[in-house]
C-alpha cells in the first residue's frame, strides 16, 4: 500500500524515497526509489534508541530522493 502512495506522489510532483524490507515486493509494485535495509519487520529504521543508525538511515534515504526513478540502493552501515 505504501508503494501506491509513492507512485501517486511521483505522478503529482513530490519526489519519494522509500525504505524496503522486502525488495521483491516493492519491485513488483514498481516503487520509484527504494533503499533495502537489513532490519527486522516493525523496526525499519533500526533498533530502539540507536540514534546513530537512525541518522544514517534518514541521510541515505534523503540522498536517494535526488537519484533517478528506478534506483535501488542498499543501506550502508
Amino acid at each position, binding site marked *: 500500500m505504501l508503494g501506491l502512495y509513492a507512485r501517486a506522489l511521483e505522478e503529482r510532483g*513530490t519526489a519519494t524515497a522509500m525504505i524496503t524490507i522486502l525488495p521483491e515486493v516493492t519491485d513488483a509494485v*514498481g516503487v520509484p526509489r527504494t533503499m533495502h535495509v537489513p532490519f527486522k519487520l516493525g523496526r525499519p*529504521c533500526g533498533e530502539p534508541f540507536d540514534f546513530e543508525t537512525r541518522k544514517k*538511515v534518514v541521510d541515505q534515504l*534523503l540522498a536517494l*530522493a535526488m537519484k533517478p*526513478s528506478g534506483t535501488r540502493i542498499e543501506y550502508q552501515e
Partner: protein
Amino acid sequence: MKRKTKVKSKLSVAFSTNFPEAYKKFTLKHVNERQGMPETVLAKPFRECKVALITTSGIHLKSDRPFDVDNPAGDPTYRLIPAAAQEEELTVTHIYYNTKFAKTDPTIVFPLPQLRALTDKGEIRSVADVNVGLNGGILETSAVEQEAIPKVMALFENEQVDIALLVPG
C-alpha cells in the same frame, strides 16, 4: 481491540517472525503488479526542500483516533502528524508487527526528530506539517486508491511538499 483481533495479531506476528520466506510469498501473492515508473525530478537543492514522512506503521498522535484494527478489511484512513510533534505525543496501532519496540521509541518507524535536526542544520528547508500515519496490511486497496490517496495528494500539493520519505511498518 477485540479479543478476536488480538489472537489474529499474535498469529500474524508469529507467522511473519518464524516463517519469513512464507510471509514474503504470501505478501507477493497479494501484490497488484504495476507497470511503468513515475518520476518527479527534484529541480532544487535539498536546502530549499520541504520534506514529509509517510509511514504504514500505524503511527498517530495519542490524542487522535486509533486505527480500526477490528475491521477485517483493514483501516484505509490516514492520520496527520505535525512537524513539531514530540515522541511522547505519539503511539502506534497496528496488528501485523510487534509494536512493543515502536511504542518504546517511535523513531524506529517515524524518524521525525532526525528530520527536524536536518532543518536545524540548514540541510533541508523545513519539515512539512502533513506527515502521514497509515495502517498497513491492507490487501484490497481500492478504498485506499479511491479515497485516501487523493485526499493526501491534495494536502501535499497544498503544503507544497518537495520530498516524501516513506517508511513501512
